[in-house]
């Protein structure tokens, strides 16, 4: 029997709208995390934070809305920088080496909202601590939106 490698850790469908979703008590037995968000929300920009920390984080973005392209890089506290729209959104967030304590944490994100935009993002949380909680925030997520968290073994 093969060893599970891409392991579902959490799967939630919102029964009512929520301004954030936090995954807590994340175990350290994996190498990467993958968060998949599908749903709708208020339009705006999705952000993230780890381990309940605030502080300076970093992002690099490249987005296209069908008529123009844009790229930004920035450092700031409380980053909400992943553009989303109101409906039919899929976001895949890869948290790389989340349990490593010898590096800052790198994220790779793809945002797909076929009616409005496509985007790719590199993010960094300036912590060398292992990530034990992950919070997605910045917009009001609608009831029926789903969030799935997976752990990838290495």
């Amino acid at each position, binding site marked *: *029997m*093969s*060893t*599970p*490698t*891409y*392991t*579902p*850790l*959490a*799967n*939630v469908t*919102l029964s009512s709208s*929520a301004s*954030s*979703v*936090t*995954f*807590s*008590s*994340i*175990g350290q037995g994996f*190498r*990467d995390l993958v968060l998949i968000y599908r749903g709708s929300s208020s339009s705006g920009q999705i952000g993230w934070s780890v381990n309940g920390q605030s502080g300076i*984080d*970093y*992002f*690099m*973005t*490249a*987005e*296209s809305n069908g008529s123009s*392209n*844009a*790229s*930004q*890089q*920035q*450092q700031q506290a409380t980053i909400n920088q992943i553009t989303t729209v109101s409906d039919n959104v899929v976001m895949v967030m*890869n948290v*790389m*080496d989340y349990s*490593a304590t*010898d*590096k*800052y944490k*790198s*994220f*790779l994100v793809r945002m797909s909202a076929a009616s409005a935009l496509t985007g*790719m*993002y*590199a*993010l*960094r949380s300036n912590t*060398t601590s292992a990530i034990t909680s992950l919070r997605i925030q910045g917009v009001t997520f609608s009831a029926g939106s789903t*969030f799935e*968290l997976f752990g*990838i*073994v*290495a």
Partner: protein
Amino acid sequence: MLIPIGFFGGGASGSYELIQTTLVSSMSTTVTLSSIPNTYKHLQIRATLRGGPATNDRPWIQFNGLAGQNYAEHSMYGNGSAVYSSGAGNQDKISQILIPGDNGTALVFGAFIIDVLDYGNTSGKYKIIRSLGGSARWNTSNEVGLVSGLVKTTSAINSVTIGSVNGGIAAGSRISIYGIKGA
């Protein structure tokens, strides 16, 4: 909403399997993952990389030790100011998105997810890769982008070599390769 992990979790069946992980312990000119078995349908490489002795570096990837004019690439990337694209044929490797070099800000790595599709096919197909990569830094050269690559070999892929323009993959870098089973 707070979701405690473990309440919904469970084990998955083995359709996505770890083949190898390499943790780089000291600056290495290149890193090669070899002896990749031909028992999967696709491969996925997941990596956190820091480059050679420079502020910035650009990693590259080769397969089966193949050099010469056996690769083509196209990329689309943002650099913090604008979105660009580039392409090249007849290359001796496939370039990837810019990452921190080992002289750059400490503890910062670039990240990559590289899919190698139908890697084991020996029925006359060249191999296709696609990648998402980038890093987030401030006030320095920086990119996030997509790369599509062509590997002009009809042989099964059995090794992957990663290096960089500035000649090194730094300590702390991690390269994992996974196999994805077909139906």
